[in-house]
């Protein structure tokens, strides 16, 4: 009987090692260890043995059964892990294939730059003010110290709707509108983004473009504050390592007036085509608000002072993104728009 059991065990071991999948093992398990399996069949013969022999053979038979069960389960594990490995190998994909394309929209580069400029000033405590794109002559010119026949009107050839109404040539009218609304409250601290229009259309001029204007009014605002504020802006938008300089300039609504240049972002100041070999790039115009403009806005220029500045968003965007053609902004070619 023991020989018989031993034979079963040896055969099982052989078959198990040859089994190649879980199904075969399960089949074998039923055949050997099942309720009607070979072991059970053999153990039925126990009842024909005497008590002493029965106990010792029974014990050996149980040990054998246990050993077989362990063999089965470890072989099962072994096969499972082999099968998993095979599956993983089978399932590998070409990970170099591109991912499923999502819709690829995006904001216009001018919107992105506008947001960037805006966020810098928001963190400095500025609010955003807006005004109409079609303006009265009064707000666009008169109240900004540009009376009729002032030569500065020529710098800004305008689109007229009627004698007194025009497409605004700058966002500066909102300065006066805001002052009128707020006076005599202090401080005034706004930026004004928006579309502006000038009667000019060539490679470097677009009849419509975008400006961001700024205005700060308070007691004891100085030219030094103008310099510090705009220097902070320049460093935030073009990087801490750009150099900044201020030159006297002229705007009818500021006095003293200044032009702010930054060291060329392309050549770092050594001179190149982008900066006309000067090493400097003109970025924005600024100045202390002319007392006559403060008066138009309802403030007393003796009691309060202020500074104002303005910049072209296209120019900043061109420098930041390395765009060399102004026309691309309004051409709206998908190949251009999709790059942002």
């Amino acid at each position, binding site marked *: 009987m023991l020989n018989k059991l031993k034979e079963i065990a040896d055969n099982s071991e052989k078959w198990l090692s040859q089994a190649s999948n879980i199904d075969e093992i399960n089949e074998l398990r039923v055949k050997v260890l099942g309720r009607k399996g070979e072991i059970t069949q053999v153990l039925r013969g126990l009842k024909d043995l005497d008590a002493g022999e029965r106990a010792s053979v029974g014990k050996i038979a149980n040990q054998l059964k246990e050993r077989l069960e362990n063999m089965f389960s470890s072989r099962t594990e072994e096969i499972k892990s082999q099968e998993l490995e095979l599956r993983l190998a089978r399932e590998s994909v070409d990970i170099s294939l591109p991912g499923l394309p999502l819709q690829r929209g995006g904001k216009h580069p001018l919107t992105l730059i506008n947001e960037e400029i805006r966020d810098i000033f928001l963190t400095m*405590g500025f609010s955003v003010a807006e005004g109409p794109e079609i303006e*009265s002559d009064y707000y666009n010119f008169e109240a900004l110290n540009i009376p009729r026949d002032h030569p500065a009107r*020529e710098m800004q050839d305008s689109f007229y709707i009627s004698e007194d109404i025009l497409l605004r040539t700058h966002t500066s009218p909102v300065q006066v509108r805001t002052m009128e609304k707020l006076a005599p409250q202090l*401080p005034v601290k706004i930026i004004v983004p928006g579309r502006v229009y000038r009667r000019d259309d060539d490679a470097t001029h677009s009849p419509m473009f975008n400006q961001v204007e700024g205005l700060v009014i308070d007691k004891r605002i100085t030219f*030094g504050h103008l*310099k510090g504020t705009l220097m*902070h802006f320049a460093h935030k938008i073009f990087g801490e390592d750009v150099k900044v300089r201020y030159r006297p300039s002229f705007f009818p609504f500021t006095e003293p007036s200044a032009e702010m240049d930054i060291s060329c972002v392309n050549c770092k100041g050594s001179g190149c085509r982008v900066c006309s070999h000067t090493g400097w790039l003109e970025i924005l115009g600024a100045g202390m608000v002319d007392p006559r403009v403060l008066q138009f806005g309802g403030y007393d220029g003796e009691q309060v002072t202020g500074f104002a500045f303005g910049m072209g968003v296209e120019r900043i965007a061109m420098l930041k993104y390395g765009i060399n053609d102004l026309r691309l902004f309004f051409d*709206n070619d998908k190949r251009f728009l999709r790059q942002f």
Partner: protein
Amino acid sequence: MGVSINWLKQYVDFNWRAEELANRLTMAGIAIEGIDQEDDDFILDLDLTPNRGDCLGMINLAREVAALNGSSIRMPEIAIKENHENINQYIKVGIDASDLCQRYAARLVKNVKIQESPAWLQKTLIHSGIRPINNVVDVTNYVMLECNQPLHAFDYNLLGNTILVRRARAGERFTTLDEVERKLDNDMLVITDGSKPVALAGIMGGLDSEIHDATVNVLLESAWFLGPNIRRTSRKVGLRSESSIRFEKGTDINGVIYAVNRAAMLIQELAGGEVVKGIEDVYPEPRKELQVTLRPERVNYLLGTELTPSQMRSYLEQLQFPVKEQKGNFIVNIPSYRPDIEIEVDLIEEVARLHGYDKIEPGLPGGETIPGGLTPFQKFRDEIKNIMSPYLNEVINYSFISEENFQRLLLPQDSNLRNVVRIANPLSEEQAVMRTLLLPGLLENASTNLARKNENLEFYEMGAVFYPAESGLPLERIRIGAVVCGHSDVNWTRHRVEMDFFYLKGIVENLLWKLGLEDCEFVVAKDFSYHPGRSAVLKYYGDELGIIGEVHPLVLHNYDIKQRCCAFELDVEKLFAHKRTRLMVDKIARYPAVERDIAVVLADEVTAAAALKAIRDAERELLKDVVVFDLYSGEQVAVGYKSMAFRMTFQSMERTLTDNDINSSVNRIVDRLQKDFKAELR
């Protein structure tokens, strides 16, 4: 304007090399755009701001250099040999328009010999961009460049003994030196010989009295004309000259005599002749020098500096401005060649300029800082762009369009959208009216992109549209519009979405949902520009928010678009007005949800919206959600009918639903569909 450094050195001493001089001037507000070398000379390219027209004259530019290096200028000395005659015997000047011509001086040089100018003079003019003509005309131009005082030379024998300055008569005709006949109006100023014009004042002389080879007697004009009037006339006749440019920017009324003397002297040197004694100088109201008070503490207050009064004074004196002290303030006499200085801040700028902007310490405004920020409407517009941008590319179009667009959009003649704000002086008909809707710009974007073989487009724009107002400024409203066509990008997975009506509707529904406006209804639209069977008006409790649809095939044809395009356009201000904050209305149920599908056959005219409404109405309590998940028409459904399948989700907040609960709900729903639409279960 080109400026020769060698010439400049005749008036002022400096040791700076060309680059250094250019840098110093630039940093003092006289921008030098470039430097060209010419033999032993350097030519500076000046880019003057409009307030510094004075620096169009070499002497005034020399004053700037002198102010910067603390030296002083050398004015050319005037030495004229006059004869014993009297100018009054030869010429009488009258001014009939003393508002436009506030001074007129004339001098006569007799018996000159007209010939070519010497080489140095010709070269100087050429460097300055002026063509040499003859010795007399060249001298007038040279003195203009030197003194910033335009001069004119008449052939005295052709002119006669009278000069009368007056306004032109409306319709009067006059032929200028360039042989063009000009039609004048009575806002224009002319110099006449007493009857007919001989010069368009300050702009150009006349053909009939110009200096020619046989001229022997030369009458020199040196005058002051009102800038704005010269500017208007110059624009009206379309003629800008070196002379008009200078008058426009303002000349020195008290420099008139020096200039005419300087010219007489040089003519005598170069063309011989005798200068008749005296100047006929009509100057009815001599201008006094302006005095401006400068308060030293105000300078530091505005600049944020700590300059001493004596520093300030020395800057002003470097500019050769006479300064007197009075009770701690400075009374400054403004020379008449600096008409740009009118009030105290103008002087503060002079001080700052001479001190150097770069020496002013930068700082940040202190005091109470108010928190900045965006208004709710500004934030709202950002939010909309943020919602749109993952799906659509933002475009920016010009706000002006061609009026022809209205025809292309098939708008009827009486359409409100044709009521436009018109530009009086457009650059072209393409940009003649302000847009009343965004669609034309978007369709043009689609058209140009498709023409460039950019397939598959998805564009949106947010911006203002404009409508005329009864009075005051036109109305401006912010809108958002979009256009899509084609498919999503080509890829290897075979999943490509067609960007059709329902694709775009999905984008709009997503927007509405995020704004809490999912109750918005889509009502069949009747719009001339859209496909009548594939367009809808968006209504929010009766208020029309905008339109969405496939663009009408004829409209597409008009824009040269050869494929289907869908578009929408919504009023952003209305969206803002209705926007709701989303409240969490759906509690998370603890009991399981059960899904059931039904498919029913419906007549074609029954809309999905109507069927969904009926289903929701039939089971208000347990039906949590219902969506259309299939739509079929074809062989297996009778003509005029469609099969629509709904997936319904049932759930209770109180208990686990039994099959009985659900069956009775489904039955109620099916009954309702049968009753309302004669629907049949498939």
